[in-house]
């Protein structure tokens, strides 16, 4: 009995000293090793007389638990502090740059085309395409612009042959012809794409982009044309109000024809669309000329409708504050990075055209 207490008191005292891992282990084996002090006490149990045995065993177990717990706690504490010490040594500077990544971008013209398609999709237009190289007939003659018509001078055309039969399309309007020859009315299409005119200066590029629109059905009139464009411009510039002006003009393939201006003002050197008293021409349009319909075998007494052509590059410039048209095609890394869009920024109806 006094043995047990002695062991207990002695070792509790010892264990409360500042011990390292090995010293604790030493104590542990001294107590609980094969011939350890506690272990040998257990061996004694059987030799103790019956009446004392029970109490002895109970006391021994309590002392064992107490000592063992203290030892384990001490060991854990030392282990933990060793890990912490090790982790402290592994500390790194997390302000160093991450592994490199590169970001691709979508060209503003491509983004604008997607925006335009998204807007017209909502009101039932589908996208058509045509080739960049056109024949003279589709580009001019079928569009009511015969060979000796002065309106041809409005287009400085790139030709691919001396006879001037093959050319780079000067507008997206030949897609009207191709679409109407291919199918039967009604037609409700837009056709974005590359167009070409041999004109090159600060505000003209020999290649630019247009989107053609065509809506032919029964009873489509100029009110529908105005409504469609009003809707488009509002959606495109993401404004609630738009000031729009239809001016009479002349295109051989539409009659009556109009040019459309939108109101704007300058605020802090930036164009604000939809307000102000200045006018900006942004597109040409009109009711498809009966001669054009006849050329594509659509009966003008049964079907009629409108067409329009919008400069895509110009729309992009206005919306995104780009000043120089030539830069669109100059491929300057810095420019592409600055004006380009993240590929994940896909214009959609539900999420909106732009962030």
């Amino acid at each position, binding site marked *: 009995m006094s043995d047990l207490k002695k062991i207990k008191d002695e070792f509790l005292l010892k264990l409360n000293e500042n011990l390292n891992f090995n010293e604790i282990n030493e104590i542990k084996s001294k107590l609980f090793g094969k011939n350890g002090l506690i272990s040998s006490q257990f061996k004694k149990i059987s030799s103790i007389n019956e009446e004392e045995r029970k109490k002895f065993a109970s006391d021994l177990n309590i002392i064992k638990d107490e000592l063992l717990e203290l030892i384990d706690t001490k060991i854990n504490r030392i282990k933990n502090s060793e890990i912490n010490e090790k982790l402290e040594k592994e500390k790194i500077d997390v302000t160093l740059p991450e*592994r490199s990544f590169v970001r691709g971008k979508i060209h503003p013209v491509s983004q604008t085309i997607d925006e335009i398609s998204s807007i017209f999709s909502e*009101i039932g237009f589908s996208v058509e395409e045509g080739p960049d*190289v056109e024949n003279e007939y589709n580009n001019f003659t079928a569009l009511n612009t015969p060979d*000796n018509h002065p309106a041809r001078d409005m287009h400085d055309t*790139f030709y*691919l042959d001396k006879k001037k039969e093959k050319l780079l399309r000067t507008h997206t309007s030949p897609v009207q012809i191709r679409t109407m020859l291919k199918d039967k009315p009604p037609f409700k299409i837009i056709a974005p794409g*590359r167009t070409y005119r041999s004109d090159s200066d600060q505000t003209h590029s020999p*290649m630019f982009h247009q989107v053609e629109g065509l809506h032919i059905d029964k009873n489509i009139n100029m009110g529908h044309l105005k409504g469609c464009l009003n809707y488009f411009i509002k959606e495109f510039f993401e404004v609630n109000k738009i000031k729009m002006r239809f001016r*009479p003009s002349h295109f051989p393939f539409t*009659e009556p024809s109009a040019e459309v201006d939108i109101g704007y003002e300058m605020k802090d050197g930036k164009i604000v669309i939809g307000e102000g008293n200045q006018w900006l021409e942004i597109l040409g349009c009109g009711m498809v000329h009966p001669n054009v319909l006849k050329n594509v075998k659509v009966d003008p007494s049964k079907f009629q409708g409108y067409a329009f052509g919008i400069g895509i590059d110009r729309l992009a410039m206005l919306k995104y504050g780009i000043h120089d048209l030539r830069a669109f095609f100059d491929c300057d890394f810095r420019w592409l990075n600055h004006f380009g869009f993240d590929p994940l920024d896909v214009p959609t109806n539900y999420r909106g055209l732009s962030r």
Partner: protein
Amino acid sequence: MKITFDWLQDHLKTNFKEKNLLEQLTNIGLEVESVESLFAENELFKIAKIVKTEKHPNADRLKVCDVNVGERELKKVVCGASNAKEGLITIYAPPGATIPKTKTKLVTAKIRGVTSHGMLCSESELNLSDEGDGITELSSKYEKKIGKSFFSKSKSNLIDLSITPNRPDCLGIRGIARDLAASGFGKLLELKEKKIQSKIKQTLKVKINKEKNQGCSTFGSCLITNVKNTESPKWLKNKLISVGQKPISAIVDITNYVMLDINRPLHAYDADKIEKGIIVRNSNSGEEFIALDNKNYKLEKGMCVISDYKGVLGLGGIIGGTRSGTELNTKNILLESAYFEPSSVRNTAKKLNLDTDAKFRFERGIDPLSIEDGLHKAALLIKEICGGEISKIDIQKVGTHKIKVIKFDTNLFESISGYKISVSEMIKILENLGFKCKKEKKYLKLTVPTWRPDISQEIDIVEELVRISGYDKIKITNPIKERNKSTLNKSQKLFHFLQRAVASKGYLEAITWSFTDANYNMHFQGENKNIEIINPISSDLGVLRNSIFSNLIMHMSKNLDRGFKDLSIFEIGPVFTGKNPGEQNTVVCGLSSGKKSRLSWIEKEREVDVFDIKRDVVQTLVEAGYNYDEFFVDNDTPNYYHPGKSGRLFLNKNESQAAAFFGEIHPNILKKIDIKTESLLGFEIFLDNLKISNKNLKNQKIKFNVSDFQKSERDFAFTVNKDVKAQDLVNAISSTNKNLISNIKVFDVYEGQNIPENQKSIAISVTIQSNEKTLNENDLENINNLIIKAVENKTGAKIRS
């Protein structure tokens, strides 16, 4: 077309102001391009007096003048005119003024070391006359006006209109006035023009040859004898100057005035220089003449010429010749007023590359009934200003002009415009525009005015009515949000998908021109021939591109020169294979240069290589929905790729057209175009060679089926001849048992020590898993043996023990 409000008021009575005018012009389709205040500019020109002249210290012919310009201080002006002398009253232009003739803006400048504050002007510099010898000399009357502006204040602004090609009638002030009056802007004034009253016969014989394609149908003329050509009177000069024209001499000025006023081009010949008579005929091939622009023109057969018995005098409706031109000493004039066919004028001018005011008007269509009006008006003015005797008018004709009549269904107006106006309003508008209207039940029978060649059918009438009644009357009909057809078709969707897939791999999208420099194109054209543009913008943009690489490399090179090294750019667009519509393909083309992980503190930097670019291509195609397991690659690539470091990818082994090329750009090309980069890799994906799946996304998702049975990985190392492709080994393995082999991965390629020369070691890890059970050692051993046998048999490889 340049006009002034003043001139308009010769034809239009209106109470509106110029500001309203500008709006109204635009509203009726006569677009105002610009408004220029002539006065604000000209106000600067002051009446001045030379007080003192001294010889220029450094130049014999120059003088330094002290000039009184009405201010306290005299201005020092350097002047080279011989008539600059003390006491002369002249016209002074200060720095800041723009000289009308040369359009140059004056600045204070040192002339041979002496500062000149402005300039003393000659009459020609001010477009007052042709007198360019010496500075303007004003009479002593002007003494009191020193310091005042020389030009009178009454000048109204110069309004420049952009007249659409369908409206030749508005190339005359009167036509514009008529349109304005019809739109309610005022009242068109009736002209009470005097007519020639003469008993003298026109003695110069005029004949129009009756031949096929005669470009002249009517030729009116009169002779004016004993004239004294002179400077124009001030009113006439001012009128021309006010619209930016330069006065020349009375006769020329009068013909110009009549042309601008009523759009009736005229031509005045020196009658004494005409040999016997006028013959209007088709030219013979090779005929030549010197035109008033002092150029010699060689004519083709069949151009409409005005000639005499000696040869060509002028090109009908385009330009006169120097041989019969009027001069200041001209005594007898033949005045021509004719009708030339628009197409004839246009064809001739186009062939000779000639552009004149007369051509511009005739090719659009001149009022055939204005021939006599023009002669009356011009001849009487010439007589008034230059004196002389006018003959009777002579008219020669070979054809008649049909009067156009249109039966107009008044319902068409609302059907097209979407709004209503009354028939009486229609009649009012049309009558004001010069139509004769007759009501017939629901139709209007309309006689089209002769000055409107653009009107020939009902829709033209609708346009007139909408235009004049006002586009603002068109009411908006909002569009219905309804879609009956998908917006994009499959290949358009693929286009957009690939565009964004490539961009998401770190490539910047570029858009470059569809044409390119033949010197660049030749490197990338493969089997294609040059597709030349007949009239390129410049010789280095002379061909349609056969490949996007030419432009991309050009721009890549420019960016590298800007100091950027690690660049990835791409373009999606057309390349051309021929000059017929449709001979084009859509290609995604990318370029990547420089290094990966340049200057990284953590990653090892290395040059971009083939397997970077191959990953971009393969990942893009996999993302677009193509099956990776079926891809087949070989190294048969076009000659602009490095022959050893480039590949060709097929969607599957049975395809005949490659889906893509990828690899290093051929080093020789880099050398030739002198592009400085550590590495340049490129790829091309051919959209037209990609199969479009007709399955929707929902149908592409097959039944979800995975195995939870244990999988095991086995590694194999084979030695094989160097020219055997890793792909062959992989194919051999996958062919053994598609059900059990779920993944094959090449993880090491080794040449060198312990491997025989001309051989390499390829190590492959194969994942084996069954859908039905856990495979036991025996099953696995069987597959192992199958794999080894298959690879050894199909590729000649040997398993390394």
